[in-house]
């Protein structure tokens, strides 16, 4: 290992020596190097070929989504295979999945911020963008599943001649407010945090279009100390607001189910279980996006091995919580002595949707257990494999919850099956296209990494304890500089 902490030419900061704080950025980096690296992503004359390939695929899928929506609107919700008793299928499954994915972004940007986890700085911008695009995908589904889309505005409390208002005692309406607020606040948080970095792009911009666009977006930011002061306060307030918000959003989403009387839905464990699942699935998505991105744009020394390892640990922890919740559902079904509950859970494991249930268990509970082993937390292919498993598993979790409970409730006379139509499957694929298109555009045109924040955690900023973003009054002012790597 040489002085900059390189092993075989790769920057490695995954050691766990309590005497030496492992650096989040290679020590020889100067402020300008960070700027160069991050701005290089958007300033490159051409993005890597892989970007074009990915973008072409994403845009085609987006087109598919558009076609499916037009078909749906002009023909009616009958083109989806939803009917009694399964009135919620792919639409609401996709909604819950996308909202859940968004949660990791807010967790990284807000909760890890409040807990002063400095390593978040390399991935927070990324994860926040993911949040916003995921929430856009999520908002799409309830929007188009209402049947008469042109009346979707009835969801909001708009004054009208009929004196007709939304029902505020319904969890579906709480959802409108929760997800709407979540989107607004996340977007605000993301944009506010990005202003200084857009200003960096503005100041480096060559062409008039870039200069104008970044100039407008950065609102004339000059990095004045008074501005930074208010900026940091506002950022802290936003983080403090987003933290309970993110917990509330998936709790409210779970109320959609928990406040009904259907066996398998009517349980008090839902809110915490949904939140844990959301964070779990969200982190898997961050990994899924971060691994190829750091590879393609040479950001390996900013999104370091240590960042990936930390995310693996979170996936292991939340995956185990989710596994515990699955077990607890079974236990309570038995312990309650309620025959309908017991039936529902046995039907999940052994009924017509058993294949979906066991896919969920193996992807969500078994696959992450690999992360107990350090070697797995450092192997990119294994990490990527597990992340993909979790993406699939979390989709199936929502599918299992929604469809099994609806398809067989109290009265056997009411039972019915469900099998998605091709339109529903294409709409799901299309929503992935929407997400990826937005994400690829983001990588191409906006600062993918919070440069200003990274600079605050660099050793060079620590002259006499200058690290404002994670300001901690209790921390000693002087930091021992780690100058030699692991022996």
């Amino acid at each position: 290992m040489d002085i900059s902490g390189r092993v075989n030419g790769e920057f490695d900061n995954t050691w766990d020596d309590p005497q030496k704080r492992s650096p989040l950025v290679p020590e020889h980096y100067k402020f300008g190097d960070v700027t160069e690296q991050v701005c290089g992503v958007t300033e490159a004359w051409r993005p890597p070929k892989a970007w074009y390939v990915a973008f072409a695929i994403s845009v085609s899928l987006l087109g598919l989504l558009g076609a499916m929506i037009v078909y749906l609107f002009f023909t009616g919700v009958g083109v989806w295979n939803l009917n009694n008793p399964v009135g919620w299928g792919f639409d609401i499954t996709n909604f819950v999945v996308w909202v859940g994915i968004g949660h990791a972004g807010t967790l990284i940007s807000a909760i890890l911020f409040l807990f002063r986890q400095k390593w978040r700085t390399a991935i927070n911008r990324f994860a926040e963008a993911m949040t916003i695009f995921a929430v856009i995908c999520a908002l799409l589904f309830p929007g188009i599943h209402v049947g008469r889309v042109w009346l979707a505005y009835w969801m909001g409390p708009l004054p009208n001649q009929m004196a007709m208002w939304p029902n505020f005692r319904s969890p579906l309406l709480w959802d409108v407010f929760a997800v709407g607020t979540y989107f607004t606040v996340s977007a605000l948080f993301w944009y506010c945090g990005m202003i200084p970095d857009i200003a960096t792009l503005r100041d480096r911009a060559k062409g008039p279009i870039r200069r104008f666009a970044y100039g407008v977006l950065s609102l004339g930011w000059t990095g004045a100390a008074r501005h930074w002061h208010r900026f940091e306060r506002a950022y802290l307030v936003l983080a403090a607001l987003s933290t309970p918000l993110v917990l509330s959003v998936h709790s409210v989403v779970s109320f959609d189910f928990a406040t009904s009387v259907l066996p398998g839905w009517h349980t008090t464990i839902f809110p915490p279980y949904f939140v844990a699942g959301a964070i779990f699935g969200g982190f898997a998505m961050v990994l899924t996006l971060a691994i190829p991105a750091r590879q393609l744009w040479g950001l390996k020394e900013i999104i370091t091995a240590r960042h990936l390892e930390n995310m693996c640990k979170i996936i292991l922890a939340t995956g185990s919580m989710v596994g515990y919740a699955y077990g607890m559902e079974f236990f309570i079904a038995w312990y309650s002595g309620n025959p309908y509950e017991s039936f529902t859970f046995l039907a999940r494991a052994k009924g017509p949707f058993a294949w979906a249930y066991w896919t969920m268990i193996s992807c969500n509970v078994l696959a992450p257990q690999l992360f107990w082993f350090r070697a797995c937390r450092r192997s990119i292919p294994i990490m990527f494999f597990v992340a993909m498993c979790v993406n699939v598993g979390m989709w199936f979790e929502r599918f299992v919850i929604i469809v099994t409970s609806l398809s067989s409730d109290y009265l056997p006379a009411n039972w019915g099956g469900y099998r998605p139509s091709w339109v529903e499957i294409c709409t799901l694929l299309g929503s992935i296209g929407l997400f990826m298109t937005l994400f690829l555009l983001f990588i191409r045109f906006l600062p993918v990494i919070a440069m200003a924040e990274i600079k605050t955690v660099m050793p060079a900023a620590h002259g006499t304890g200058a690290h404002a973003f994670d300001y901690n009054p209790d921390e000693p002012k002087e930091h021992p500089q780690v100058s030699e790597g692991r022996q």
Partner: protein
Amino acid sequence: MSAAATSPKEPSVPRSGAGVRLCGLLAEFRDPDALREAARRVRAAGFSRWDCHSPFPIHGIDDAIGIRLTKLPIVVFFFGLMGCLTALLLQWWTNAAKPADYPMVPTFLQGYGFLISGKPFWSFQANIPVIFELTVLFSALCAGIGMLVANNLPWFSNPLFNSERFRRVTNDAFFIRVDSTDSKFHLQQTQGFLASLGAIAVERIEDTIPTPAETRLPGGLVKTGIVLACLGLIPLAFIAVARSNKSSSPRIHLIQDMDNQEKFKAQAAHPLFKDKRAMREPIAGAIARGDLREDDRFYRGYKMGVDPKTNQPAPVYFETFPAQVPVNEAFVQRGQQRFNIYCSPCHGVDGSGRGMVNQRALELGGGWVQAADLRDADRRSRPVGQLFNTITSGVRTMPPYGDQIGETDRWAIVAYVRALQKAEGAAIEELPEKERSALRKR
């Protein structure tokens, strides 16, 4: 620090305007530590209109400059409170307020007390999620927008942007800016002072003074603006006219919702038929299946004859049951069951006329006619045909039941009414031996 760097350079200011105005001085420092140190000394020198600029927030710079803690969080708190109250009021008004209690409020703003599955109109618990969300929404918007407003952003024409050197402020350079409006500002002295703090460069911040012509809006722009504004008023004017006038043509129906279909409805006019009615009459003499009710005795209980006294046409009631119905015990029991469903609410299960509806209606008053006692002498004297017709067509204030009860069932009820009449005031000797002993045992 190099000697050359201390001499202020001429910035490259575009010189199209009437002249150049000095806005202040900009000094660059090597690193965050140097900046903080310099800031401390600028503050000690008593400057008031100045600031530091850096690519990231530098810890400890607030103390060095003497920045007071921002009041933003307090403002945020009050906005949060406002969000909380807004949500509370909104939910109460739209879901719990009764429009009748607030007649002054225009219809489109009127609240509405929704009754949902018998739940209370106002249940605080159910309102907590929305209260929480709006509190967060209001506070967050206040924090974000408030930060920008307090920072006086957006400000695109900041003269600092004229400096080529200042471009690096968002990358890796650290600056102190002293404004020329500061009371202590003196070009040469301040320049020297900043240089003495260890600045690697000091330069002037200048701004072009626009000529009067430049400050005026171009005439074309003004004219187009006025025209556009006037055009923008046209739709509003149409709306205002439409709102205040009545119109006989139907309103514009963009989304059809299957409201208007290409078919003729029952009462609509039809251009093709002579009588202009879309709804057609059956062909004369046609009878629908099951409508050929020839048997007077079974279907009506009477046939038309002549009243011997007045010589006017009058119904003649049949005295016996029709052959289609078997008058046996099972038939009478069926009649009892139907009677209890259809007749007992008014006439009582015993036919005395003291049914529950009758009692309640008498209690409320208001012109209710006592339901007849079906067992009195008058009713006993009615032929079965007449009883049947009473059920079919009603009588005086009693409504008809012909369209609810089929013919056979109506006859069954008649049979049961006869049984009731017989039972009233019957002597025990009239019962068969079996029933008699069963009664005695009780």
